[in-house]
C-alpha cells in the first residue's frame, strides 16, 4: 500500500509523464491525409469495382459458365444472359453486376475458372441514382480498359 502523503506527488509525476508523452507528438509529422485532394496508394489486391477482362482481340474471356453466380454470397447480384456464337461456344450476351447487393467479397474473382473477371481499384462509387450501380456488360468492359489506362488493374496471382 502506498503511503497516503506520497500519493499527490506520484500523481503529479504520472500526470507530467503523460503530458510529456503527448507533447512529444507535437513535433511529429502528421499521419493523416486530406482525403479528397490526396489519396493513399492502394495495393494490387484491393477489392473495388468489378471489370470483365477483354483480350487483345477485343473479346471477353468469360464463357458464361455461371460459377461466379454460384459462389456469390448475395443472391441475384450477378445476372448472365448466355448465348452460343457461330463456332458453338457460349458467351455472355449480357452480364450485369448489381453493386447495390454486392458485398465486395471477391469470391467471383477467386473462383472464376477462366480469370475472366477482376476487381479494379475504383472505390468511390457513390451516386445519385441506384440504377447507376447496376453495371452492365459495356460498363464492365469499359472499367477494364479504364483500369489499364490508369494502371489500376489487379495483378493476376
Amino acid at each position, binding site marked *: 500500500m502506498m503511503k497516503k502523503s506520497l500519493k499527490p506527488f506520484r*500523481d503529479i509525476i504520472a*500526470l507530467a509523464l*503523460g503530458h510529456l508523452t503527448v507533447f512529444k507528438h507535437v513535433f511529429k509529422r502528421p499521419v493523416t491525409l486530406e482525403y479528397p485532394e490526396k489519396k493513399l496508394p492502394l495495393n494490387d*489486391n484491393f477489392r473495388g469495382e468489378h471489370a470483365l477482362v477483354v483480350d487483345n482481340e477485343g473479346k471477353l474471356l468469360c464463357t458464361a459458365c455461371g460459377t461466379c453466380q*454460384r459462389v456469390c454470397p448475395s443472391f441475384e447480384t450477378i445476372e448472365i444472359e448466355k448465348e452460343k456464337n457461330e463456332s458453338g461456344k457460349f458467351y455472355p450476351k449480357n452480364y450485369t453486376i448489381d453493386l447495390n447487393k454486392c*458485398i465486395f*467479397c*471477391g*469470391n467471383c474473382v477467386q*473462383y472464376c475458372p477462366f480469370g475472366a473477371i477482376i476487381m479494379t481499384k475504383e472505390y468511390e462509387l457513390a451516386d445519385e441514382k441506384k440504377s447507376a450501380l447496376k453495371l452492365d456488360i459495356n460498363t464492365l468492359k469499359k472499367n477494364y480498359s479504364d483500369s489499364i489506362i490508369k494502371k489500376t488493374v489487379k495483378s493476376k496471382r
Partner: protein
Amino acid sequence: MTKNRLKINIGPQHPSTHGVLRLVLELEGEIIKSCEPVIGYLHRGMEKMAENRTYLQYLPIVDRIDYLSGFFNSFAYCNAVENLAQIEVSKRSQYIRVLTMEMNRLSSHLLWLGTFLLDMGATSPLFYTFRDREVILSLFEELTGQRLMYNYYTFGGLRHDVSDDWLDKVGDFVKIMPKKIQDYEDIITNNPIFTTRTKNIGVLSKNSTLQYSITGPNLRATGIRVDYRNSKQETGNKEHNSHGLGYLVYPELDFEIPTAKTGDSFDRYKVRVEEMKVCLKLISQCIDWLKSNTGEIISPIKQHLLKVPEGEFISNVEAPRGVCSCYVKSDGSGNPYRVKWRTGSFYAVQILPKLLENTFYPDLMAIFGSLDVILPEVDR
C-alpha cells in the same frame, strides 16, 4: 416506481454504446438502481442466412459477425467445416492463420483502448491507437484486399500465400510497437483521473463471471486463467473445456497468459494491454517460422462444390472479446443444416444489470466500455 426514481433511456443511438444498444435505467439521484439492456437492433439473421447458402457462399458473411475481428469468426467457421469434412490444413497455413489472428487481436484491442479512454473523456489516446491500428489495417489490406472484411481463409487453407516482403513489413511493425505500447502506458496507467475512475469500479467477482459465462479478458481479469489457445488449463471445471484447447499451432509457440486479481475496470484494462504484448511475441515467433519454412497454402479441394458429410461440430476460438464458438450441423448436402454462433460480447451485456446496480451514473460508460462489448456480435 417511487416518486424520486427517474427512468431514463440510453441509446440506441448513443456515441458510447459501440453500436446500437439501448439501456433502460432507473435512477435514484445519481445512483443506478436498475438497468435493463435491450438488444437486437443490429440483428441481421446471420445464423438463418447459412441455411440457404452453400458452405462457400456463407464464408464471406461470417466476417461481419464481429467486424473488428473478422479473422476469428472466419477461422471458427472454417475450423468447424474442416473438422466435419476432414480436410487437412497445412502447417504453413496454420502459422499464417495464427499470425493474422494475433494481428487482428492487436488491432481490436487497440481500437478498444482508444474508445474506452474516449468514453472517459481522454481524447489523445484515441488518435495514437488509431494511428497504430491503421498500420495493421493497411497490412491486412495488402494481404487480403480489404481492411475489415477479409474473406481470406478458405476451407483447408488460405486464398494465397504471404510474401516475404509483407512479412518484413510486419516484422518492422512488431519492432516499433512495444515503444508505442509503452507510450500508452505512460499516458494512461498511472494517470490519477484514470485510476480513480477505474480502480475498484465495476468489480466482477470470480463467481459471477462463471455464472454468467463471461470469457476472454473479462474473465482473466478476475484471476481465472482460462484461454483456449493454451492446451494446459488451470480451471476446476474440466468438462466445460473438453475440446478445442490449444488449437492450431499454439501449443508449439511460447507465450504466457496474462491475468489480474480483482476484476475491476482497471484490471480489465491491464489484462488487455498485457495481451497486446503477448500478441507481439506470438507474431514475431510466427514470422520467424514462416521465413524459414515453406509449404502448400492452397487447398486442393473444390471449394464451391464442397459437400460435408453428416455430423455436427463445435469449434471454439479465443477471440478478443471472449470465446467465439461456431456450431455447424450438416445433413450431408451442400448447405449447412444449422449454424449457431456463441460470441463473448453477448454474455458481457447480460451481466450489465448486475454490474451496474448501485453504481454512479457517470461510471456507467466507464464500466460498459471496460467490458469491450461490440454490438453486432451481440445481435448477430
